[in-house]
């Protein structure tokens, strides 16, 4: 039986990827960011997941306004790296796990989550920056990755509660897969940030701290945060935090926080990161 053993949440700021790709990790501005992930990299190197499920949003790289799936899952064997306007990031292509991905589709659709199947998809910084932060830059990523893309760009985006319940459905799917795989699920994006308009640069440390605290102890409280509250309190792009709730829903009710990191600023954004393990191993 496959099992989800732990969850990782992290922001997926493009400038962090660019800093890594351009060898700026030791610059005073970026050094604290990369240092903040050192122990998490050690953690995941020990955990050695067989598969990572990475919940992220496409920033209009693979998708556009032509098709806007609310939830989509990558079922391909390989996902090329998108050119987001500066050329593709110099990172390895992402290898998928078509067998488990198709099984998840089978299970969650019958569980009434009508996820879109994607067999051809380029992946952008939303997915690759978290991989870089957790794995550095190996010649190949250490395990297959199943991308789950969530629309958080065109309103209305899915509610936090819907995301949390999808996480539970994904967990059920993984646990009915007939192979002994140890799976780590990533929720990415956030935390407080606004990239657009005259209010750009908004950061709300109190909101973020409460979110990080409740992620462990009271995730159901987080599922009640309305879109308006995210927008007003944490900035227009903070809505990405609903993707953290997919990760959280896929874990046990009781989890332990094994790692937390919070840093302002990374470009326009409050960078947040947490590692959660199921309390009962």
């Amino acid at each position, binding site marked *: 039986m496959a099992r989800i053993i732990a969850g990782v949440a992290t922001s997926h700021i493009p400038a962090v990827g660019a800093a890594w790709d351009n060898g700026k990790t030791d610059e005073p501005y970026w050094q604290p960011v990369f240092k903040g992930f050192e122990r998490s990299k050690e953690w995941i190197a020990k955990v050695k997941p067989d598969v990572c499920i990475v919940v992220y949003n496409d920033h*209009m790289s693979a998708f556009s306004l032509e098709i806007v799936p609310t939830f989509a899952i990558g079922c391909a064997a390989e996902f090329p790296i998108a050119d*987001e*306007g500066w050329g593709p990031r110099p990172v390895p292509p992402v290898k998928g796990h078509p067998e488990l991905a198709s099984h998840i589709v089978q299970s969650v659709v019958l569980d009434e989550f009508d996820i879109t199947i994607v067999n051809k998809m380029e992946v952008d910084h939303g997915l690759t920056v978290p991989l870089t932060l957790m794995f550095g830059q190996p010649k190949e990523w250490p395990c297959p990755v199943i991308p789950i893309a969530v629309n958080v760009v*065109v309103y209305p985006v899915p509610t936090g509660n819907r995301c949390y319940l999808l996480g539970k459905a994904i967990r059920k799917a993984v646990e009915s897969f007939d192979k002994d795989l140890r799976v780590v699920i990533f929720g990415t994006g956030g935390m407080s940030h606004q990239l*657009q308009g005259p209010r750009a640069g908004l950061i709300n440390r109190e909101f973020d701290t409460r979110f990080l605290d409740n992620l462990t102890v009271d995730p159901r409280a987080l599922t009640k945060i309305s879109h308006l509250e995210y927008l007003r309190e944490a900035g*227009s792009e903070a809505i990405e935090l609903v993707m953290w709730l997919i990760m959280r829903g896929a874990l046990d009710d009781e989890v332990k926080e094994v790692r937390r990191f919070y840093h302002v*600023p990374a*470009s326009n954004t409050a960078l947040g990161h947490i590692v959660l393990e199921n309390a009962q191993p």
Partner: protein
Amino acid sequence: MALPKEYDDLPGTIVFDADRAREGYHLNMFCMSLMKPQNRAAFKAAERAYLDQWPMTEAQKQSILTRDWNGMLRLGGNIYFTAKLAATDGLSFQQIAAMMTGSTQDEYAQMMIKGGRPIAGNRSKSEWKNLG
């Protein structure tokens, strides 16, 4: 036209909803075309002619030609699309964010280093009115 929206009260923020997405469809799809290097080159070589391939309004075209980053958003643009135009110009997210807030690069970067724009005083339009 839809009913008034609960997020209309947010200061300095345009929520990219279905109405905006419909209005800005061609503007955003123009930005999308800039993901290909040959299209970036063609646009830079003759901006107006390139824009005329899309059935945009004249106001939308002007907002692009003048790089009115807030104007593009008001006319249905979305930041993840307009960021592709910024990338074509060699600008980062932080650089266009500074422009949209009316700050210099340095002022904006300093604001972020000091912890970002505070939430106090930035929750609703009524708070911005009092700035005089």
